[in-house]
């Protein structure tokens, strides 16, 4: 029996994020779990990735877990820093392979809301706004959405499209003139992709202990289920968990469960 405690849901999420990253990619990173996942990837299977940040830091040396995308660790000994317009420009012209972003709401077509719950006319909650989210989602070749999966957070339609995914599905993203698009959604329940024709969210693999029924119960719309058996994600090996806990986020800034 392993002496290492099993992954908690946030750790599982960080691990799943790391699995989306392939070696040698240029990865555009936002604050929070994507940062944990990317650094984990770099310390495990993808040592040659290059991380770039919207505040302008390019290819920093690893250090502490950054507090935000403007933190000194995002440009620690960077050979250069870029102005923001130019940093986003890199996404548009094809120098970023994959980007991660979270959202308060994600809908069945991968549209993301970080602006407002309710509406501006009838305000339930106001969120931070786009930040770089819209730019990254509009311009990057492959984006991966990260979120905690609950029926409220995964509604059929987001209250506000801050970052366009596949809009109304089909070819509506292309028609809007956008570049790239979301390729996956990563949650504490599993990993989803988008069915190629309708562009609706579809189960790709589930975390250990989960089932199609649990996934559906955590979702506000009908999830597509692929033909045949749904694969399970292999849980992180002990040494990966130890790297995550001891080297990547030792202060547990992002991977400690609230209340624990």
């Amino acid at each position: 029996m392993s002496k290492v405690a099993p992954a908690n849901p946030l750790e599982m999420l960080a691990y799943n994020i790391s699995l989306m990253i392939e070696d040698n990619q240029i990865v555009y990173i936002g604050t929070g779990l994507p940062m944990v996942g990317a650094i984990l990837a770099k310390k495990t299977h993808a040592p040659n990735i290059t991380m770039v940040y919207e505040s302008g830091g390019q290819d920093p040396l690893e250090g502490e877990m950054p507090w935000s995308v403007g933190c000194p660790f995002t440009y620690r000994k960077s050979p250069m820093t870029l102005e923001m317009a130019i940093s986003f420009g890199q996404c548009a012209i094809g120098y970023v392979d994959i980007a991660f972003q979270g959202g308060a709401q994600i809908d069945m077509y991968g549209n993301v809301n970080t602006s407002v719950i309710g509406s501006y006319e009838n305000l339930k909650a106001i969120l931070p706004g786009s930040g770089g989210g819209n730019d990254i989602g509009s311009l990057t070749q492959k984006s991966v959405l990260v979120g905690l999966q609950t029926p409220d957070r995964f509604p059929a339609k987001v209250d506000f499209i801050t970052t366009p995914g596949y809009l109304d599905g089909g070819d509506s993203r292309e028609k809007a003139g956008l570049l790239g698009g979301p390729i996956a959604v990563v949650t504490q329940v599993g990993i989803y992709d988008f069915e190629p024709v309708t562009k609706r969210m579809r189960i790709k693999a589930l975390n250990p202990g989960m089932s199609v029924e649990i996934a559906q119960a955590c979702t506000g719309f009908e999830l597509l289920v692929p033909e045949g058996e749904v694969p399970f994600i292999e849980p992180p090996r002990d040494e990966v968990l130890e790297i995550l806990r001891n080297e990547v986020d030792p202060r547990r800034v992002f991977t400690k469960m609230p209340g624990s």
Partner: protein
Amino acid sequence: MEFMYATQEQFDRLVDFKGAREYHLSKSRVKKDKRMSLGEAIDRFVQDGDILAETGFSYVRSPIQAYFEIIRQGKKNMVSIGSPMSNTSYLMTANCVYAIHLSYIGVEMRGNDKNFARNIKTKKAEILSIWSHGSMALGFKAAQLGAPFIGSKQLLGSDMLKYNPYVKVIENPVGLDKSEPVVIIPALFPDVCIIHVQKADRYGNAVIEGPAINDIALAAACRKVIITAEKIVPEMSIRELGNACIPFWYVDAVVELPYGALPGCCPGCYYWAREWWEWLVRIGTPKEENVQDVMRYWIYETKDQFEFIEKLGGIRFINHATRLMEAAQANIDDSLVSFDYQEVIPKWD
């Protein structure tokens, strides 16, 4: 357009290319000593009704001590813009800012700013337009490039378009298929920005260490530019390295303001006061009366950055913050410092 507080003129001024140009043309070209106190700089160059652009990045190299001085001087009727613009939150509470061009107001890893949300919900402040960082940055860059507008692939398909009266979607008139939509973003010209830098000379030539974010573009775009600097250095020392990024003729005032970015951080100088931010986020922002308390203690009852530091812990705090920054930038060995800090858990949690 119907506004709660802003005037049509204030709304138009942000995109008034010719007006900004004329203003720049009217500015003094003299290479003179522009040093003055923070109080004088804010008094002379930040006026009631101005469009204030936030610089730096949230708590990184932001001129926060200058914002505190704006609050102390009780400036009124201002409009705020920036990407990001998180420090606008307390300017709203202090009645300095009552209308914003929103890109992002939040507290980074702690998420939403409840103080900002409260100000919007209670209609103490209004939103005039909604942007993404990149689209707003392109607006500033367009201004820096002297371009009336820039085509962009940002914002397409998003609802932000419906809440941004400044941008338009058109069919691409150059290159590519005619049917390919693009967003056009006008050049943005705020009235005033305060830029905190590590080094400047007395004339305003300024060196930024670390990311410049939008500050180079903003220095070009804004009608009035105040530089606050950790150090005023001889002009020759800037010439030796040739690494300034803001030329003196953009600059109206130079303020020697060591620790001017506190309680935020200044790359190459000091780390930020994390406990202070924790306190603000966890205690200060959730309730209006707590915010008022925080502001009274830290801003109204504090004369300058030195008194602020005394409240944070004086020389011990500064020494620690300096070493943290050194370590953060890999100039000293990481093992010499600890990045641990006291998390603040409010009683009601």
